């Protein structure tokens, strides 16, 4: 068991909000399975936010893991948001239209819920 496995996502919850802080800097084929494992229906809240602040790399294996969160949110009728996405990854998310399923949200938009 690696630290990456144990702590790939750190969960923060307040009110209707769950913020899922991704703790690995590389969302790739190696970290995908540990990330996917967190994308259960019970992890979702009406406002579920993936926080990419620590993430410096995402490839398509990583995107495929992230899409599990999109599916889980959809099943619950919730929306998923993305926070602290680098300009490069904003570009990549737009290329595959990921941004439609995971629109950006900012830290200050969440303040009202705290």
């Amino acid at each position, binding site marked *: 068991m690696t630290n990456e496995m144990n702590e790939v996502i750190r969960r923060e919850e307040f009110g209707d909000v769950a913020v899922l802080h991704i703790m690995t800097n590389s969302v*790739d*084929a*190696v970290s995908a399975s540990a990330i996917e494992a967190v994308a259960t229906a019970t992890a979702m809240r009406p406002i579920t936010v993936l926080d990419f602040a620590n993430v410096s790399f995402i490839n*398509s294996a990583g995107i495929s893991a992230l899409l599990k969160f999109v599916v889980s949110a959809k099943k619950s009728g919730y929306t998923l948001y993305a926070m602290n996405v680098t300009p*490069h990854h904003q570009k*990549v998310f737009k290329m595959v239209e990921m941004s*439609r399923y995971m629109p950006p949200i900012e830290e200050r938009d969440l303040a009202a819920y705290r």
Partner: protein
Amino acid sequence: MQQVLVNIPSVPIFERVVRASADEVGRALGFSAERVEDLKLAVSEAVNNAIDHGNKRHPGKLVEVVFALHSDKLEVHVTDEGGGVETVDFSRKVVEDQNLDAGMHRGFGMYLISALVDDCEVNSSQSGTTLTLRLYRRSQDHDE
């Protein structure tokens, strides 16, 4: 022409070694930070395809990556020891509702590669596949 060669077993963790090498090669050529990220992502996709589809994650099969630094361009050759592929589809792929519902979350790799590099090319035979990526040097690039 200078060449950097990286050779890895077909185990996903070693894709990170190639990616880190791509990062340093891109910087050495003076590529902008954004272009270095594009290079890393394209190389990462190519190596993962070589590991997964080419060598089918057989750790004994190797993926060879050659960074060829030409005066006018960087060429990256990613070669596997797989059974080859008939045609590769570089067309645009986006996330779609029906694919999500069907649990189909893959298929973005080749499109991303083709969109992120200036030029790419597949050479495949029964003894393996080579994907070549090309990034032309631009006047604003600065050698180290």
